[in-house]
């Protein structure tokens, strides 16, 4: 049994290649991944035809080389890492379902879950002395007599430690530490395993940097080009994110900002450092300086006995300072999470556990629906909030938005950007261009 040629998580390719060609292959891979949202079937049909043609394996080798260089680049850039993991995960999912034989699927299972964590159904029965297990017999009967069964589906056993989601949701039959189910039901866990392994490989790739000057230069050059690449930047950048009028959408605020925002809305007071933190954030999500001046003037309880003109002269100076219009005229950025942890306000660090639970349970605003995290979810987050606040924040994200955040949230604008995307408040620039172009072409 061997892995399919398209599978990128194989042993590293021979890196003794022409650098110019390698760069080309990396860009080719980027283009391929960028085409996925527009039509997965076209990408699979054009680039991964279903034939046994020998020459194709050379193409696949080139794809893997390109993918490998991107992995090295992702090791130096967190926002690229997030984009790459999600895109490669999607491509893996498509190719796995459309271009993989049963033997290859079994190889992928063993590769991603570990050889010792996967067993064929028949091997499980004999090795675990389960030949007389009636439940197992019933499972076998149900599987083979099922009307909608796909010919390429099969029964397989995976150790429970590799598929916690299936254990939590009681998918499959759990017996002696093994989940027994049909291959199709493992697909979600398989994609997750692929993405986790891919992320580990990206982390390991860091070790290769600094060994070879030419490779380092190439990585740096492509990284800089990719950082400017519109599509990737607009999808996944954090520090370059600048929203438009998102201040009226608190549903995209990270927990630290929503807490300060709610606190200020209800009390009209914030200490200086917290005002700065919220002010920087409101600026970056698109609030104009005039809007911020009015906002602080109207909401702050300290301004009740002064006129707007007086406010402009006093507190207004600080607000204009945020925008680089006073003093050193520097356009300040929102502080990153590590700075917030020590000098500003992080809800996971600075709130008492009881207040944090209350806040995370009830105070979150979202447009989608009323989100009420379960006690278990909250306990898990609380247990790591003080020792690892960024992880707690990262794990809180999917509870609110139902989408996993790959990598760690290390900057408040990372949260805001991804949340805005999910809530449909920002549109990908290229997609927007394509959409308007299509409208023109179709005469709309």
């Amino acid at each position, binding site marked *: 049994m061997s892995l399919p040629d398209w599978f990128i998580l194989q042993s590293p390719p021979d890196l003794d290649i022409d650098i110019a060609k390698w760069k080309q292959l990396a860009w080719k891979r980027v283009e391929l991944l960028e085409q996925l949202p527009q039509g997965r079937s076209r990408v699979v049909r054009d680039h991964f035809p279903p034939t046994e043609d020998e020459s194709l394996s050379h193409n696949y080798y080139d794809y893997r080389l390109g993918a490998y260089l991107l992995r090295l680049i992702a090791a130096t850039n967190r926002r690229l890492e997030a984009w790459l993991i999600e895109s490669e995960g999607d491509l893996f999912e498509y190719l796995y379902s459309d271009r993989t034989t049963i033997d290859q699927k079994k190889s992928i299972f063993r590769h991603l879950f570990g050889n010792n964590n996967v067993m064929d159904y028949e091997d499980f029965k004999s090795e675990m002395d389960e030949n007389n297990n009636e439940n197992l017999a019933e499972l076998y009967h149900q599987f083979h007599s099922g009307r909608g069964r796909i010919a390429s589906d099969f029964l397989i056993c995976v150790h429970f430690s590799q598929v916690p989601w299936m254990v939590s949701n*009681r998918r499959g039959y759990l017996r*002696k530490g093994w989940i027994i189910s049909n291959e199709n039901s493992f697909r979600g866990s398989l994609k997750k395993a692929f993405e986790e392994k891919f992320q580990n490989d990206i982390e390991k790739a860091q070790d290769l940097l600094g060994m070879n000057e030419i490779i380092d230069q190439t990585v740096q050059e492509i990284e800089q080009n990719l950082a400017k690449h519109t599509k990737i930047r607009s999808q996944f950048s954090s520090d370059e994110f600048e929203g438009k009028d998102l201040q009226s959408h608190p549903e995209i605020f990270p927990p630290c900002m929503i807490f300060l925002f709610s606190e200020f809305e209800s009390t009209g007071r914030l200490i200086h450092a917290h005002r700065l933190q919220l002010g920087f954030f409101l600026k970056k999500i698109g609030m104009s300086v005039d809007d911020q001046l009015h906002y602080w003037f109207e909401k702050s309880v300290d301004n009740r006995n002064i006129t707007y003109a007086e406010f402009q002269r006093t507190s207004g100076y600080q607000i204009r300072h945020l925008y680089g219009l006073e003093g050193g005229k520097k356009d300040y950025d929102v502080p990153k999470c590590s700075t917030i942890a020590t000098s500003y306000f992080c809800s996971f660090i600075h709130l008492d556990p009881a207040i944090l639970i209350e806040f995370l349970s009830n105070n979150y605003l979202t447009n989608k629906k009323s989100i009420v995290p379960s006690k278990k979810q909250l306990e898990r987050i609380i247990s790591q909030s003080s020792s690892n606040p960024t992880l707690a924040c990262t794990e809180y994200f999917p509870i609110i938005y139902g989408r996993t955040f790959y990598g760690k949230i290390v900057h408040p604008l990372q949260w805001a950007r991804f949340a805005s995307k999910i809530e449909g408040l920002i549109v990908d620039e290229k997609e927007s261009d394509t959409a308007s172009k299509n409208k023109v072409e179709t005469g709309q």
Partner: protein
Amino acid sequence: MNRVQQRTALRDYYSTRFNIDELKSVINFSKFSTREFGFATLGGKFFRNISFENPQALIDFLVDRTPFHAYIGAVYNESPTRETPIHTLEWFGHELVFDIDLNEYDVVRQFICECQGADQVCIRCWQLVNLAVDIIDETLRLDFGMKEIKWVFSGRRGVHGWVNDNLGFLLNQEQRMSIIDYLSVIHGEAETARIQDREKLKYDFRNRIEHTVFKYFLKNVRRKDLINLGLGSTSATNIMKQLEHQEGNMDDNLLRNINLRIAKINKYDEILRRWVPRIDHKVTIDLRRLLRLPYSIHGKTGKVARILPPSDIFSFNPDEEPSIF
């Protein structure tokens, strides 16, 4: 007993009766020097980030300092100390632990016994703990394939299940959480908690839960419980007579008969809600948590947190446990 006498009793226990070999059957000793310990003093001060070179150093500490409570935590890449606290270290492993405490059952204990308040415990409500041990132990062995499971009296109102398999030691938080999810039959722990759709409980586990809960329910049921559930007084009297007649050895016919009557009044879920295991999730999923050191003394009760041998685990009565105070 005053504080001086309590300290003397603790010193006497740790110097003469505390047997480190018994601890080895519960705890993984392979990386003893990088294991975290924590202690609470008689005056209520709490210390953690403490480690010991070897087991003898731990014993010397217990004898010398006579802590009121002794706790054990996870293993790290280096020895935890005040200068290198655990949040600066890399987590290496922790036994998989389940905490069954009657605190978790406070909302349903009123249906089982007459105990009131957090400090009370009786042999009737202890049946809730027995049932949880029964189901969790069997599920861990048969469904999860775990073998080295020991149940340890917490010293007060519950037990801790310690799984010392190599696999359990290395499980991450997500994997531990999945086991808790699998074992949880009720959504939430409050009075209004709802039982999961039983059809979603798979195969052996569903049978195990239903059969075991019903067995414990009938062993401990009182006439007034049946009436409270909605059975008529004649029907309740008849069931009680049948149960008394069989002296606790219920045959399948009797079970089926009673089952039908309970099914008629549609109170099956209510019985499950009162009896199913309630695990303190935090203890299982928190990888850095400190837990009472097996064979140490519970400072409030003076009772030993000893291993309950499988042979008499279900006849254990916490009220009969001797106190060193």
